[in-house]
């Protein structure tokens, strides 16, 4: 059994470490690339949302590397992610690939299905062993997310932001060959140190942008055209409202941090959007408000073309922008998104933020004088 799973940012690092600890053989899909997207677009229904297309690309590239079993999380609505597994199975079957799917759907009152899926994926009936593996996986994903977070701030502070890029590139290149959770964790620690040693500018204040929107587009750098890196090079600190570790702690109810953060977002969103709308639409509105309250310079919403919950959020954000006087930019991505146009919009937004900072500073000077 050679296990693979779709890419979503750092998730593969934790998935790999955890499964390897359990003695499973993992075949990672190559990093998402133009080719991945091309393959996915070719074989997926045209009007399906982008994450599914990339998933399909990941699977096929993994199968070419020898994978025969696919792991996937599920949901039971209200958004279409809940039907990803059904559509994806159909596509691969029709293409003649003989692969096994292990889907972790929410238990819906029948936890035995979910537990069996875990056992099958882990290759053991020993629940304690599985639980331990899980614990390790969670630790890795937290560490990896913190590394990403650090690099997103450091890039803005660095005299030469390219240095941060190089260290992160090294990390992503070598991590594939690091096996088991303890080695992975020490490699993350090592990279952390390297990032910390990058020399910083003599500047005390930095502009800050919060990223909100659909979880997959926020997390997977290929899909958001490496927005964190781009903003970092403009000297802007980037904070993401959703990360794999936040997702994990919320959905699996592991730890109260994820849940209470989610609650905070819902509470903030309430005057604008009082119920769930599927996906993370409500969190998008809530996070934008929280960023505004924390004095961020701006907020960027990213969503895949035709993402339903995010379209609801998109129609509400202009009111948030007005009420909180914070610029919000919405970026829609799909297989047609071109790098050039994307960058132009980002640049224009950054210029706007800079101008507002200047004006604010001048205003304060005037007041004092």
């Amino acid at each position, binding site marked *: 059994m050679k296990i693979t799973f779709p890419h979503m940012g750092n998730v593969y690092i934790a998935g790999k470490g955890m499964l390897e600890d359990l003695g499973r053989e993992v075949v990672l899909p190559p990093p998402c690339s133009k080719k991945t997207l091309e393959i996915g677009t070719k074989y997926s229904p045209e009007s399906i949302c982008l994450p599914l297309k990339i998933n399909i690309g990941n699977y096929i590239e993994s199968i070419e590397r020898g994978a025969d079993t696919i792991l996937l999380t599920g949901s039971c609505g209200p958004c279409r992610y809940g039907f990803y597994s059904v559509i994806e199975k159909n596509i691969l079957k029709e293409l003649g690939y003989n692969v096994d799917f292990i889907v972790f759907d929410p238990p819906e009152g029948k936890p035995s299905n979910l537990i069996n899926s875990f056992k099958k994926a882990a290759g053991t009936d020993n629940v304690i062993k599985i639980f331990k593996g899980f614990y390790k996986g969670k630790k890795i994903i937290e560490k990896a997310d913190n590394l990403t977070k650090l690099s997103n701030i450091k890039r803005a502070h660095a005299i030469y932001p390219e240095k941060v890029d190089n260290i992160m590139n090294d990390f992503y290149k070598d991590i594939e060959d690091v096996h088991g959770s303890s080695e992975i964790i020490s490699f993350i620690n090592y990279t952390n140190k390297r990032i910390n040693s990058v020399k910083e500018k003599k500047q005390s204040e930095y502009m800050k942008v919060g990223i909100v929107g659909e979880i997959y587009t926020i997390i997977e750098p290929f899909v958001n055209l490496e927005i964190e890196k781009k903003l970092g090079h403009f000297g802007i600190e980037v904070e993401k409202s959703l990360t794999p570790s936040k997702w994990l702690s919320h959905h699996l109810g592991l730890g109260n941090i994820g849940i209470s953060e989610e609650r905070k977002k819902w509470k903030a969103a309430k005057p604008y959007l009082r119920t769930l709308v599927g996906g993370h639409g409500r969190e998008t509105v809530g996070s934008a408000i929280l960023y505004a309250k924390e004095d961020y310079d701006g907020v960027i919403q990213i969503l895949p073309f035709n993402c339903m*919950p995010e379209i609801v959020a998109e129609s509400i954000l*202009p009111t948030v922008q007005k009420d909180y006087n914070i610029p919000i930019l919405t970026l829609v991505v799909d297989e047609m998104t071109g790098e050039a146009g994307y960058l132009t919009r980002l640049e224009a937004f950054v210029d706007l933020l800079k101008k507002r900072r200047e004006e604010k500073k001048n205003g304060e000077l005037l007041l004092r004088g």
Partner: protein
Amino acid sequence: MNYKVGIPQGLLFYEYYPLWKEFFSELGVEVLLSTKTNKKILDSGVSNCVDDACLPVKVFHGHVIDLKDKVDFLFVPKIISVKKREFECPKILGLPEMVSNTIKDLPPIIDPEINLWKSEKNISDSITELGKVFNVNKSKTKKAYKKACNKYYDVRRHLNSHVIPIDAIKIYNKLLKNTNFKKKDRLNILLLGHPYNIYDEYISMNIIEKMVKQDINLITSDMVDTKKINYYSKKIPKRMFWTAGRRLIGSAYSLLEEEKVNGIIYVSSFGCGLDSILIDLVQRKASLKNIPFTLLTIDEHTGEAGINTRIEAFIDMMKWRLNDENNISTHG
């Protein structure tokens, strides 16, 4: 005081209007409908809604604009779930907020939350709240709702006796026009799609009338028995958690499995998230059963001529097939 409540003729209006209308009348509240969808409504909807929304949501915004200066209240319920463990589309979940954050100078919106996901009993709180808006007490409100429900079920029963639902609404408005009983030796064609896509004559460009003129038996999901819908919607490998999806999949699968249909036309609005999944499921099943399937995707730029040609070509093709099969069976 006599209040006037505006109901936009869009989205779930096409399913629940009889219920809403009765309920408000029982409460002694006057109901004003928006004008039927027309170019002006479409255009104002398109320019007063986020670009990325689907056509029916844009049209709904147009209906709100049509009504907003004529009424004391707007009725835009927040319909999250109408059946245990089922959901509506995310955009329908967020509809009141989409409208109120996009369109300016609105009268107060009445947006009771209808959420039966956990329990079908949850409705009573929302209903009582609704009564309060118009100073009607709890027991009177409940009675009004019960009466409205009974009338609504009456209307739904008409649907199952093979009357095309648009007519059912007309029956309801005392405009009985009932010509479409099933005839033998005619093609049975299933017209699939969200009710607001197929029954809104402007959005669908009168597709129902066009098809009826072609001497075929037209079937819609509403005309398929609910028991069958529920049974066949379970044939997919995962529980269908959308109410609209259950109806569309269940009706299509039941007619396909029971070999009661010669062809399927699916009308979908561009960018519909639910349809991207449902079309795939129906299309695969149809091709497995060797039943012709065609998809008509509509948006604000769709031209009527193109749609006409597509429908005619599809029906002609099926008539050919039918003749062919008959020939084979008589000679073979």
